[in-house]
């Protein structure tokens, strides 16, 4: 039986991505970010989210894409998974969509330079739209940031 999954849709370098709605806490406009020294470049720093300090990472940087200037449309999506709360900087976020689980296919091996392990699936919507569903656990994997950290030293 096909189930309906609600996802938050956001864009990153002209492509559309989705995160399950229950993993998303809020979507915020850009706020001042405090830089934290000695962290990988894609960790932009920390923000004050209603009294709680939350780290923010640039999702483009995390995926090895070229980082872009922030615009009016830039958003911080606060996700919570794996006991972690982290903000993702994305180009824009403006949609909630229902995806049928049988419309989701396994990720192809190589996809726009983004490592396949960050992707849990690709959903086909209508005739021409493709939605890349993120594997949050891998995206948030801390072992990688620690590795990067050691590499930098």
């Amino acid at each position, binding site marked *: 039986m096909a189930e309906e999954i609600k996802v938050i849709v956001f864009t990153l370098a002209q492509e559309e991505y989705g995160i399950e709605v229950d993993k998303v806490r809020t979507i915020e406009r850009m706020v001042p970010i*405090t*830089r*934290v*020294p000695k962290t990988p470049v894609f*960790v932009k720093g920390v923000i004050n989210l209603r*009294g709680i*300090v939350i*780290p923010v990472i640039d999702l483009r940087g995390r995926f090895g894409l070229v980082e872009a200037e922030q615009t009016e449309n830039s958003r911080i999506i606060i996700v919570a998974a794996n006991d972690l*709360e982290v903000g993702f900087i994305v180009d824009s976020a403006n949609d909630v969509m229902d995806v049928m689980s049988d419309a989701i296919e396994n990720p192809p091996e190589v996809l726009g330079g983004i490592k396949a392990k960050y992707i849990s699936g690709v959903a086909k919507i209508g005739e021409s739209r493709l939605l890349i569903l993120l594997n949050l656990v891998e995206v948030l994997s801390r072992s990688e940031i620690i590795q990067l950290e050691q590499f930098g030293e």
Partner: protein
Amino acid sequence: MEMNQYMSMFIDESNDHLQSLNENMLRLEQQPEDISIVQIIFRSAHTLKGMSATMGFEDLAALTHEMENVLDLVRNSKLSMNGNIFDTLFKCLDALEAMVQDIINGGAGKGDVVDLVERLKAIVKGDVEGKGATKGAKAPQAISASLVLDQYQLSILDQSLDSGHKAYYIEVKVREDCLLKAARAYMVFDVLERNGEVIKSFPSVQEIEQEQFDRGFSVYYISQAEESLLRDQISRVSEIESVVLTLVDRDSLAELGHSQDSSTPSEEAASEVAAAAEPAVAISPTAPSAATSAAPRTPAAAASSGNAAPRTIRVDIERLDSLMNLFSELLIDRVRLEQLASEVRRNDLTETVEHMARVSADLQNIVLKLRMVPVESVFNRFPRMVRDLAKSLDKKVDLVIVGAETELDRTVIDEIGDPLVHLIRNAVDHGIESIADRVKAGKSEVGTVHLRAYHSGNHVFIEIEEDGKGINRPKVLETAIKRGVLSAEEAKNLTDEETNMLIFAAGFSTADKVSDVSGRGVGLDVVKSKISSLGGHVTVHSNWGTGTRFSIQLPLTLSIIAAMLIKLGSEKYAFPLSSIVETGSVKRSDIRTLHGNRMIDYRNSIIPVVSLAVLVDSPDYSDEEENETEMLVIRKGDKLAAILVDEFIGQSEIVLKPLGKYMAGTVSVVSGATILGDGQVALIVDPNALIK
């Protein structure tokens, strides 16, 4: 019944009752004649029993039940307290505590209480021969014809009434020509169990099942259902001749108790039930104010203060934290509003904003106070501890507690218990002399340990002072030299103060012999490191022959620290004030290079220079270009270092916030973050990471 939801309530209340039992037993030991204290103890034990039975912790209930029997004889003057009874009861309290602890840890609250129960039974039997006293242990079996409730069941009924249930006494008769009496009875029970709970039935369920009853049976029953509904449903079972439902209220419940065999303790239980109906009486044994003056010396004051119980609720600490978070948000908006109002320049707006500012300032005060807890919650375990210690060491010791109402942040309270236990043991064991020595020294037989707490500025002080023999300075020095803590040469130049501090060195013990309570290798160094980890410190004053005083200075709270805010180009950082020795400035020409490391001359010693800008890779500031740089001298242990910064912003109280799990382990220079008045996040530098 779903028990889990009541579990935390049960645990909290059991702890309260155990505490109250401990305190009052101590008071009673001081004045064994005061029957009013026995009454309080009895009520606490009784409530504890009722709760445990309700929750199904039978060992707990069984033990408290036997304790109650003993206490009952005492309060009716049929038995007078003696050392043996006190010891037994205290042992019981320990066992109860262990069982409750087991429950807290997720266990079933089982404990081996057979021994204690036997001892209690022996006490009851030994002093008043027979007199039916043992009957109270189990529900009387011999009584037929009518239903007699034992104390468990009475208290269950009582508690159900409290929680708004209805209690019924139901008599059911089956028709004479009924063929399957047991089956009919089963159907009635089935109806009953669907709507509530059968507390007690006569004959017993087994007997009914085996058809060992005549034509009728009766039950005590708790339900939320209406009388008529129950009657209807029961009557619908065929071959039932009559159903009589009687609503049981408090009065009839109390009567029920009284109508029982008058010499059994159950009677008292019933009057107890009646007493419990008056909230004032029921609450008084748990009144924390009674504990405030828990010092055995002032029992009269404690007894009279029982009625003025502060009304409190328990709140999850996480909720308080989120309240504080939301509140800091509000403060940020307030600052913004004030700014806007000053730009708009409209009188009524300015006034409203000013009013809001005042209200939120008051609110802030209250929110911060919510986390504050009286140290009493830590202190109140000490009277019992000192009693036991003194007994096992064969000394006479008075513990005088002052300032138990002094408030500290919850997080500090949770941490300070162990160090205090250690220091108080130390005071009783090492400080106070044996009775013979005290008499020889011309002191009174009874030693005194003072435990004081008081506020001073932004700190709370806790002092432990005894009038014992004091610290033997030559011996401390001798031991220190022997252990290689310092050289004989250095020892000569030590002040008294410095000598006293030596006892905090690791692995240091001047005890002549290992006693039961100390000398197990855990030294005062643990106490010291614990206290410093809380941001406090401890000092010792001692006079040979007249006593020692340990004084602990603690911050009011761990979540708010005093810090120095500094600027580094566009970025702001905070340094904990506690690690800063001095602020100043240094000229470029004064920085020397020693073996590739930058050093400066600071008060006749050479200390390393650390550039914060380099350390945090500052994007827009470098001290290379400056001729004169601001500096912070920080300390880690006895090491100093000069930290070069851009500009001082000033001293401020900041609220500590964790950086979040994602950052954990990756950032070494930064220990946390704080939110500044303008809503920006500033990082807190970990001074320990700056000094290698």
